[in-house]
Structure formats: C-alpha cells, structure tokens
C-alpha cells in the first residue's frame, strides 16, 4: 500500500524556478545599479545648479540695489554701505592674464621638455616633481609668499624692473612692501604651471612619431621640428590647457589674498596694491558688516562664476573640436 505523495517538482522544474529567481534578482540588481549610478551623475548636476542658484539668490539684494551698474561701479566703502565691483574684476583680470602669460611660457616649455627632450628616466622623476607643485596648499603658498617672495620683490625685482621697463607704466613705481598684483601673479604662476605642464606633456606625446621623425629626416633641427610639426598639430589643445589654467588662476582666493595687498584700487602698475574677486571674498566674507555687503560679495561671486564657467566651457569646446579634427 502506498499513500500518494504530494506532487514533487521535477529536478528540471526546480532548476528553472531557481534560475528565474536568479534572473529576477539580477534584473532588479541591474536596475538598482543603473539607478544608483544615474543618481550619482544627477547629483553632480544638481549641485552645480544649486551653486548657481545659491550664488544668484545671495546676490539678489545687491542686484536689486545696483543692477548691472555694479559691474562698472568703482567704489567699495563698507562703512558708507556703498559697493561696486569694477576694481575687483580689473584686479582679477590683471592677475589672471599676467599669470597666464608667465605660466604658458613656462608650462609649455616644461611640457615639451618632459615629452620630447628629456630621457625617459629623467622625465619620470621630473614630471611628478612638477606636479607636486600643484599639491602645495594655497595657504602655505601664501605664507611662504609673504615671508620669502614679498621682501625679494620689494628689494630686488621692483627696482630692477622699474628702472628698465618703468616707462611702460605697467612696471610703475612701487607702493607697499612688495604686496602687489605682481606678487599675486608669481604665486598664481606657481599654481598654474604644473597644470599646463601636465596637460601639454600628455598632448605632445600624442603627436605621431612618424610626423616628428619625418621632419627630422628632412633636416629640421629640434626647434624647427617642434615649431613646424608639434605645435601646429597640438595648437588647440595647448590653447585649451592655457584657458583651463586661466580659469584656475582667476578663482584662487587665499594665496592671492595674502600677497596682493588688499586695496580696492585700479592701477596700471602691477606694483601697486590691488584686490581680486576671490581674495576680497576670502578676506571680507568672514567679517561682513551688513547684509548688503554679504550680498555684494555674492554678486562678485556670481561674476567670478560666470567668468569661470565661460573659460571652462571655452576650454572644453576648443579641445573637443580639436579631437574631432584629429
């Protein structure tokens, strides 16, 4: 006599059920991972939008009062509650352009040296050392700037440049103890050179070897090969790297605040104390005396943000167009 056992699922059925369950888990996990990754990307975007929104809404008080006139208004007198941004914009542009010139020359030269001139062994030591320069915190750079750079500028560089190039007004008479846009330019150059050097080195390494060899086989010297082949093929990439460096330079706050002098004034001379947007935000924001002053700082921040985003987008445009051509 046998009692009827409840119908057991066959082994095949059993396996299929397990597989379906696994498939379902996998499908769900796939979807979850994709959503998580999407959330990460979306968060980056959300933060950017929030930054723009926050800065603009912070600036609204000053914007209501001054409108776009803020940009061309020169006075900034906190006790009189009167604010204008032109001197800071001017200072930002002067220091940015100055450091752009110096760091383009130095950075591209170093990039060329590391990619085309130096033996491999030398390059793998010097390359990271140059990149180390970018790792030095800005506050430390500013501190060293105050105690090492400013006295040196005051006692040696200022008199020398003034006596030789003083007639151009750009290197006019000195004021203060060396704290000037010139000092800021040097400090910014130290920060930007490693960026340009690293970017251009990678760029020059992408120039096809046959092109370089071809030029040298035709009898070009090293310099003629670089001027005739390497620079033209990488021109837009170099431009993009420099624009990116410029964006970094105009955004720096602390190091510049420590060496620029902190006087809201516009001078042609790079030896007269001045101010930049980033440095005034760093100096004044912790002790702003009125809501209008804080709002004016946000307004300056919005201007800086527009300048930064524009340069960044320009750099991306230039380099992506170069990628398409190649």
């Amino acid at each position, binding site marked *: 006599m046998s009692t009827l056992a409840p119908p057991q699922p066959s082994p095949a059925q059993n396996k299929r059920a397990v597989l379906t369950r696994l498939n379902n888990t996998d499908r769900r996990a796939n979807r979850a991972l*994709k959503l998580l990754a999407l959330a990460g990307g979306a968060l980056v975007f959300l933060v950017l939008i929030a930054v723009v929104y926050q800065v603009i809404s912070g600036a609204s008080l000053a914007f209501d009062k001054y409108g776009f006139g803020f940009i061309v208004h020169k006075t900034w007198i906190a006790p009189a509650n009167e604010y204008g941004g032109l001197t800071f914009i001017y200072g930002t542009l002067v220091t940015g352009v100055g450091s752009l010139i110096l760091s383009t020359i130095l950075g591209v030269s170093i990039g060329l040296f590391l990619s085309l001139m130096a033996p491999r062994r030398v390059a793998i030591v010097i390359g990271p*050392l140059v990149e180390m320069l970018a790792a030095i915190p800005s506050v430390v750079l500013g*501190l060293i700037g105050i105690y090492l750079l400013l006295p040196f500028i005051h006692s040696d560089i200022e008199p020398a440049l003034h006596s030789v190039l003083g007639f151009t007004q750009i290197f006019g008479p000195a004021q203060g103890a060396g704290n000037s846009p010139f000092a800021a330019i040097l400090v910014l150059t130290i920060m930007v050179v490693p960026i340009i050097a690293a970017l251009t080195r990678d760029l020059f390494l992408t120039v096809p070897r046959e092109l370089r060899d071809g030029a040298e086989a035709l009898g070009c010297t090293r310099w003629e090969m670089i001027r005739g082949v390497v620079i033209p093929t990488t021109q837009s990439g170099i431009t993009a790297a420099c624009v990116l460096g410029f964006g970094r330079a105009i955004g720096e706050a602390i190091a510049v605040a420590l060496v620029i002098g902190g006087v809201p004034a516009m001078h042609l001379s790079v030896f007269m104390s001045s101010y930049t947007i980033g440095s005034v935000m760093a100096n004044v924001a912790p002790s702003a005396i009125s809501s209008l002053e804080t709002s004016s700082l946000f307004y300056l921040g919005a201007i800086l943000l527009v300048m930064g985003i524009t340069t960044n*987008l320009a750099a991306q445009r230039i380099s992506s167009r170069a990628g398409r051509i190649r």
Partner: protein
Amino acid sequence: MSAIPDPTYALTASGNLRRRQAISRGFVAATIAAATLAVAVLIMLVYYAAKQGVSQLSVHFLTATLPPGSPGASGGIGPALAGTAEMVLMATIIALPVGVLTALYLAEFASPRVGKVVQTGLEQMAGLPTIIIGMFIYGLVTLHFGQSAIAGALALSIVEVPLIGRASLEAIRRVPGSLREAADALGVARWRTVVGVILPTASNGIVTATILAVARAAGETAPVLLNSNPSTLGYQFNPLQAVPNVPVEILTLLNLGYPSAVAKAWGAAFVLIVAILAINIGARVWLRRSERKRGL
C-alpha cells in the same frame, strides 16, 4: 672626377646651418631651464617651510591645544589636526560613492549624448573656484544652522567629487575590454560584472584618486573658511559644531601677527606640507608598483 671626399670639407656646421642649430640648442636649453626652475621652486618652497617650521615640531606641538587667552604664545595644533582629519573623513565618505557612481554611470550606462552632458558637469565642478564652494555651503547650510564640521565637510566633498570622479572614470575605462567580454560571454549579469570584475580591476586607480583627493581636501582653506572657523581652538569632535582645522588655523595665527603666533603658523604649515607631499608621493609610488605587478 674622383670619389674621394674633399678632405677640406668641414664636418662641423657652418653658415646658415650653424645659425639654425644654435637657435635649436638655445631652445632646448630654455626648456631645460624651465623644468629646472620649476623643480628649484618646489625645493625652495619645501626647504623654506622646513627652515621656518621644523623648530616647532614636538609631540607637544602636535597634540596640545592653543590657550584661549593669547593664542600662539604656547601650545600646539592637536585640535586642528583632529578637526582636519574628521572633516576630511566625512567629506570622503560623501564624495567617494558619488564620484565612483558618476564615473560608473559615464563609463557603463550613459548614452553618448547624456554622458557628454554629465562629463561637462563634472569638468565644471572641477573648475569651480573653491571660495565659491565655500560661499555656496555658507548660503545653503551655515547661514541657517551655524558653522559646523558637517558644513565644512560638505564643502570639501564638492572639492573631492570631481577629482575622484574623473580619475575613477579613467581607471574604469582602462579595464581591458577582454575582461568585460569574458564576463558577458559567461552570461554574467551586468551588475555582477561591475561589482565582481570592473570595480576590482579599477580599484587601484580609484584608491589612488581617493588618497590624492584626501590630500587636496586637507589643504583647502577657502571652502572651510566660512563654514568651520571656530573662535575657540580647543579639541572639538562634535560634527554639529565648528571644528578647528589646520589650514584655517594657519590663517588665524598669521593674522594675529605676533612673532610667536606666526612661528606656530609656520610649524602648522610645515606639518601640512610634509603630510600632503608624503601622501602624494606614497600614492603615486604605490600605484606604479601595483600596476607593474599586474603587468599593466
């Protein structure tokens, strides 16, 4: 008509060629000079910081607090070191998943068009001036809840996300296609491929990027200046309170201006610079060695 070369023909360059070679040599010398200058500046910066700061170093300096009455006269930077560690740790806990997930999205899931947009966003985030990040968190958090370690950490995490994201993306893209194809051929689900193959293979690059981001965040002043800049410089671990931190403390001591305070600032700067450079060099050496071990 002879095949013998003219013995008087000079093998050294002359005339126009000599001029061209001189220009070329001058140019090569100039690039060498530029590279030397950069390295010399680095050495000079580190040497000067060491010269000014090394005399401050002691266990007392690294652990003691600055007395509230006359900060800088005696004491040390213990609370600031602890505060920096705390904030950077919190920032990294926030930034690491966001950065890696963004990289994963860009490398694995995004359509080219959306990917381009998100990548642009990441680049823009990397280009944000740090002082703007500080003002952003100030307006978003600090203005409403007061200064806190959390606010500082949030600002620092915005600094870290693009650094981690971009480097992770590069590391994930370097994962050999054959590994991915092998996983696909075995019928492995996408998420298992990501978790079991892609992330472990890219982990070296991700870890290095994270360490470099930590070094960067530890030295940032502008993002925390408005968000965690306490008036008392004692030990403080509560993340809802402003905690002292090394970069801002350097600035505070410097602004005090007494020689003893400035000496403390130099000590702190030396500690910071040594820590950051050591982390940087260590991370690079480790990455290079581990990649060589795997034959990449």
